[in-house]
């Protein structure tokens, strides 16, 4: 059951919301949280009861581990052992489901052992709820949380709006809200804003992402099946995929934020107009922001700190210092982020591309070179982003190499395996790209449109108000007509069988 399904919108959501109100009126916030935990498990169990069992075991195990770590108090070494053990167990479980076959491939490649693949189904969202809970263990070790009630912890780890594909929430930002006596807005206001945010996300997903997705699929699948490419089709496919992924994932994130708001819990932002970024660092501050925050907090910063200590200890020169404090941490962080997305060399290369680009960006600043003009910075950033997403999307490195070669080296005469060019309506693809490109570059984003009623647990930047311009939402009759029309249009455009791209991670 995905958010953009009739089962969810017309059955699960209304029933869950009604149940939430009843539970809250009968048993207070605590009762409401318990109800939401049960609803979240039911939501998750729609994929598979076995998956739900794995989720429950993960929640129970991490809750117990976190409490054990918290109980250690001054016994830091023991707490540290528990933390490392907990992280190890989580990574082991994730690795088993996600990376077993990748590791088998590597072992087979190195030793010719001929080990057979294990038939495993990847539990939806396992990367997300595992990392969220690793974050909790680290925060428990750092002493930045107090022991939560189980229903609060379970809701933090398994809340249905974010259990399948994020946002990667921090325990403290969720628990603080849960600890409040009453939610910050009235039910009607929360519902109105939350539904509007959900509607915007739904529209992004089913109308925008699903309308451009077929063009990306035509190019990647066609080229994968052996059809020929040219520079135009390669570019159209690559840009289509970039837009599809953005509208798909940011649509999902908007829906998650809207749902959270309806149930009185604000979630962190995941996107902030990433295609307006004028540098690669800026891009990662705007794209999948909670993942960037997670990896920055738990990998990049510790590595940079360690590098700084190491550079200080050996009195390193400027270049060596940069390598230790910026270059290596950036590369390692993005390679890990790449592998987190999936098992395969494509994801390693994807991480490598972005790690290198970030390192280059940091080096540019370290060298105090003049800032590039915004337009040039934007072009360079988009070149890296779109190229990286080709590697991200293509099923093999050979295919991504072929597409990138057609994109960047069109003057070379490639020998095609097939005389047939991928079947793509180039005019329609271009028109769709222009339309969607205009939206991402010129329109305010969802949270900017809703800036009067800030939807996120993150602080609202002052720029949001300015960016919204005239497109500023408020609960008025005129906007209810616009919202209802867009919502109905999206509802009536829900296709069969499409899911969120990020569910595969």
């Amino acid at each position, binding site marked *: 059951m995905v958010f953009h399904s009739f*089962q969810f919108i017309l059955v699960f959501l209304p029933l869950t919301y009604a149940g939430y109100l009843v539970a809250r009126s009968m048993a207070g916030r605590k009762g409401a949280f318990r109800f939401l935990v049960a609803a979240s498990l039911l939501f998750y169990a729609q994929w598979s009861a076995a998956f739900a069992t794995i989720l429950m075991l993960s929640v129970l195990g991490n809750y117990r581990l976190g409490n054990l770590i918290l109980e250690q108090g001054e016994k830091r070494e023991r707490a540290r052992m528990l933390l490392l053990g907990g992280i190890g167990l989580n990574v082991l479980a994730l690795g088993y489901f996600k990376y077993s076959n990748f590791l088998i491939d590597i072992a087979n490649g190195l030793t010719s052992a001929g080990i057979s693949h294990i038939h495993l189904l990847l539990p939806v969202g396992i990367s997300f709820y595992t990392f969220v809970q690793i974050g909790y263990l680290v925060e428990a070790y750092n002493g930045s949380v107090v022991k939560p009630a189980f229903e609060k912890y379970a809701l933090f780890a398994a809340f249905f709006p974010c259990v399948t594909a994020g946002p990667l929430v921090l325990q403290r930002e969720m628990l603080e809200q849960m600890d409040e006596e009453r939610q910050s807005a*009235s039910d*009607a206001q929360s519902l109105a804003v939350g539904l509007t945010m959900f509607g915007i996300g739904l529209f992004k997903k089913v109308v925008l992402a699903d309308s451009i997705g077929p063009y990306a699929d035509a190019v990647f699948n066609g080229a994968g099946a052996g059809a020929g490419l040219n520079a135009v089709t390669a570019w159209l496919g690559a840009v289509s995929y970039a837009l599809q992924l953005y509208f798909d994932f940011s649509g999902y994130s908007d829906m998650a934020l809207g749902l959270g708001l309806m149930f009185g819990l604000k979630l962190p932002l995941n996107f902030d107009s990433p295609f307006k970024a004028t540098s690669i660092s800026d891009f990662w501050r705007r794209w999948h922001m909670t993942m960037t925050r997670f990896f920055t907090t738990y990998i990049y910063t510790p590595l940079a700190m360690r590098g700084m200590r190491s550079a200080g200890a050996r009195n390193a020169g400027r270049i060596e210092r940069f390598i230790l404090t910026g270059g290596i941490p950036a590369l390692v962080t993005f390679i890990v982020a790449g592998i987190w997305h999936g098992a395969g060399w494509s994801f390693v290369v994807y991480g490598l591309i972005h790690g290198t680009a970030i390192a280059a960006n940091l080096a540019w600043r370290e060298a105090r070179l003049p800032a590039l003009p915004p337009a040039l910075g934007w072009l360079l950033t988009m070149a890296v982003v779109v190229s990286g997403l080709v590697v991200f999307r293509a099923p093999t490195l050979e295919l991504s190499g072929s597409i990138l070669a057609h994109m960047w080296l069109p003057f070379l005469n490639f020998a095609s395996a097939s005389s047939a060019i991928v079947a793509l309506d180039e005019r329609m693809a271009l028109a769709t790209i222009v339309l969607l490109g205009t939206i991402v570059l010129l329109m305010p984003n969802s949270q900017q449109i809703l800036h009067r009623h800030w939807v996120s647990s993150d602080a609202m930047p002052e720029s949001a108000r300015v960016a919204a311009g005239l497109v500023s939402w*408020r*609960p008025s009759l005129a906007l209810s007509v616009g919202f209802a*029309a867009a919502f*109905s249009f999206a509802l*009536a455009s829900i296709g*069969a069988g499409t899911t969120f791209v990020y569910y595969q991670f």
Partner: protein
Amino acid sequence: MDQAADTIERPTRSDYGHAGRKASSGARRSSLYLACSFAISLATVGAIIEANRRYAPEMYRSDYMETVAEAFESGQHYAVFDLNINIRKLREEQWKRLEGKPDVVVLGASQWQEASANLMPNRHYLNGHVHRDYYEDVLGMVELLVRYDKLPKDLVITIRDRLFTPVSQRTDFLWLPTIPYFQAMAKRLSLPQHRLADTYPLQRPRELLSLPMLLNNAARWHNAKDRPFPTSRHSHAELDVLHPDGSITWSDKHHALFTQERARKLAIAHADANKNKPVMIDPRGVEAVDRLLSYLAVRGVRVHLAHPPFNPIFYDRIRDTPFMAGLRQVEAVTRELAAKHKLGLAGSFDPEALGCSADMFIDAEHSNARCLKNLLADVANSIDLPMVPIAADAPVATASAAYHSRQVLVASGWMANESPTPGETVDRAEAPLSAVTVNAAAVANTGDEPALPRQERADSLDVEVATRAAETEDETNGALPNKASDDDDTLSAADSANVADEGLPNSSMASASSTKSREAVTSHRAEQRKASATARRHARHRSGKPHRVQPRAASATGQIWPGDSAPRRR
């Protein structure tokens, strides 16, 4: 208003001051916004639903099936845009109005869609196929037959490849409207009911809500020269035609699409998409059919289990694949059911075994009337002749060989002499496989001579029925089902006989030992047809009526009654 809306951040009900009033105002505005949004959304969605119902009534209005059934009741056909109507509901409405009990009812999937009453002319035949059937459909359709007191003497239950697919593994939804009928039959049989959550027919409302569907439906409605309507014509240039006997005739537009190259491509694509997909068999489905067979036996219904053939291109491409292994399992289950209930077996997944060639298919699994005739021939043989149960525990290859031998034997008439009389059943122990195969060898040595009387009888029946059909059609201006209309292509009887003799795979697949006698039969039949057609032409000439020919199916195939079929097995 903006100020009021801004207070969403921190309303405090305990505060009776300015902020509290603003919060209250914000909540009121939000409530109003929600109410307006809800009302407008509901109206928009309702408008989309209503528009879809208007532009595709045959798809989305269950009461429309009553209109179609009423047309059938009055002897008319019904032309539709799309065959994917709620055919289960149509079956109910149609059978409810049916006069008398049918002799033969065929239950199965769309593989049967072109099997008209012309293929079984001396019987009150009803084609009860529904699209993409599962075991629930078998039970559901029998429930309708029971409910409206229409249980036939002979019931053909088709066991297709995916009939026993577990509910949780299905990705289509056309079967869902059968659930009320299935539940009723399940209750009769004391079977567990399906859960509502598994079987709620959500897909139809989903389609009704679909904007792309609305755009398609509206464009089709406004661009169409003719919209769905009751018709006395058997076929239509642009619309597919549903017939009262349960069969269909593709539109001329569709016929033009059905090239051999297209069928080949579809068969290959279907094979590639399915060859590695296992065929799943739900034991609950098998048990349900098992109990149904017992139920039918008590009520004196003679059941025949049938396998529909695949396109040879598809069949060749799935050899040695998991899908083929699945087919073997389905065959084994079918044999087991047949053996347990002492039922006749007809048809085969293997097209060659039925004499169906690639040019008889429009895709991987839908054959035309020529192939279906062969399939019905097997059924008809079972009806006329006693049934030979196949040992359930026989190895696949052996059982298959024995089964093939049976077809040879039945076609040659051996069974008529050697088997128990019609209606009697043969105990498994009394009909060992070895005996069947030995006798098959014996008959193979003696040739086809014993079959002649049957073929002659069938031949005369063929001519008689064709004549009757043509004459009745003249009288009713083509209003009867499956009769040639004015626009039907007009092969002469002699032509049709020639076409049939040249085109039928049965002829080309006949064994060398039987060629001589078959030629004699063919020649005899052609002579009879020519004479009959000439007589009819003379009669019409005298009466001043326009020239008419045999019904379409008969014209296309030449042979109607299966008794004149030559051996179809290798």
